[in-house]
């Protein structure tokens, strides 16, 4: 798993109050009881603060599992790096 994935997992585990090893790339609000709309927002905001970016509404729509969140974040960071160059 990538470093980004591990950071996403760590943030989610911390906010959701579950051990990190309980969170996989397939983890979603449907299988983690403490993950509701408010917590989804908190996870998103924590990632935005950690990585100094903001997700568009269309990107938020793609953030349905931990794996998808990590992939989206990697792509967004990569685009940001390209832009900076």
């Amino acid at each position, binding site marked *: 798993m990538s470093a980004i994935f591990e950071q996403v997992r760590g943030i989610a585990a911390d906010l959701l109050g579950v051990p990190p090893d309980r969170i996989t790339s397939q983890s*979603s*609000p*449907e299988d983690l009881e403490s*993950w*509701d*709309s*408010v*917590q*989804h*927002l*908190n996870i*998103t*905001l924590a990632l935005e603060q950690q990585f100094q970016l903001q*997700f*568009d*509404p*269309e990107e*938020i*729509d*793609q*953030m*349905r599992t931990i794996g998808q969140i990590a992939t989206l974040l990697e792509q967004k960071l990569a685009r940001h790096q390209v832009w900076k160059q």
Partner: protein
Amino acid sequence: MSICIQSYTQELVAAVRAFNGRLAAGGVSTEFCLPEHPAAGLLPKVADRRIYQEYFLARERDSVRGAYILKHQDFSFSGAIRPIAHLRLPISEGIINKAYAGLALQMLRNALRAHSSLFALGMGGFQQPLPRMLQALGWNLHEVPFYFKVNRPWRFLRHIQPLRKTPARRLAMDLVASSGIGWLGIKSLQAMRAQKSIPQFAGSVQQSEGFSAWADTLWENCQRQYSFLAVRDSATLNLLYPPGSGRFICLRFEGDDSLLGWAVVLDTRMENNKYFGNLRVGSIVDCLARTENAPQVIAAAVDLLEQRGVDLIVSNQSHHCWAAALRSAGFLRGPSNFIFAASPKLADSLRPLDPQRTRLHLNRGDGDGPIHL
């Protein structure tokens, strides 16, 4: 399958109906149901009307998964008129299906992109999901105080639900009511709070069918005293409180030689209401006057409602002069679940005008209107 957010159109009526059905099956209150027609009901966008509503639906292929409403309205910022929008609902399928847990944030971000100066009002208290999310998003939240005055203590004690939640409490309230102790205690407390120094209203009160030029004159005379309030000219007021509705009692208060102000009140017989039981509740929903006349307007409105025989009078008022007027009339402050939330941009606009937020004029006439009174 991706979700896009779009305006409500005729082709989505069946999907909206199905969405409402899923919410109802999931135990969600019908107050969150969407209208099953794409016209915005009250306040559609018509010609150059400055107050109107727009519905936005979160669409996933042929299904609706959520919605929010923007009510566009002009507000006065210490006399400068600017358009802002009231964010209503939003409602997401995530409330019954956690697969859509991210939709609420998606809709909130979408709404802010459409209009950065937004506010939300009401919301049932700070602990509800929406205010918690708005606070996390950097919105500025504060409570709009709630005041009440008991007119008929016996009925109040027998029906006010928050004081009667357990069998023991119900028995206690019944005993207090029957013994007369409740009457004495409530009337004494309210009398102690009331200020005898406030002059009795000596003018005339007229029930008005609608608002006209007199309301426009008052609006021009008053607005700069307030740091923030919705435009309350006659055209807007007649839309919000339609003449002949049979529901809104519009009162006009005349002093010796001038119009002092107006108030919109309700006189509602509640039925199994979760707060008011079967009480007859008078509400001071909306009002406007120069702030120095607020005590007389409140006193006159209260007197009218008491004469009508209501059991209880309630009002939410944010402006310190109107709140003081209620206290002077013997009102007690109760717990409020009526929250004002300003988006970051709106909060930035308000901060230099009113850092302590004491001169914002918000009440139950704002936002959704008095839908639960």
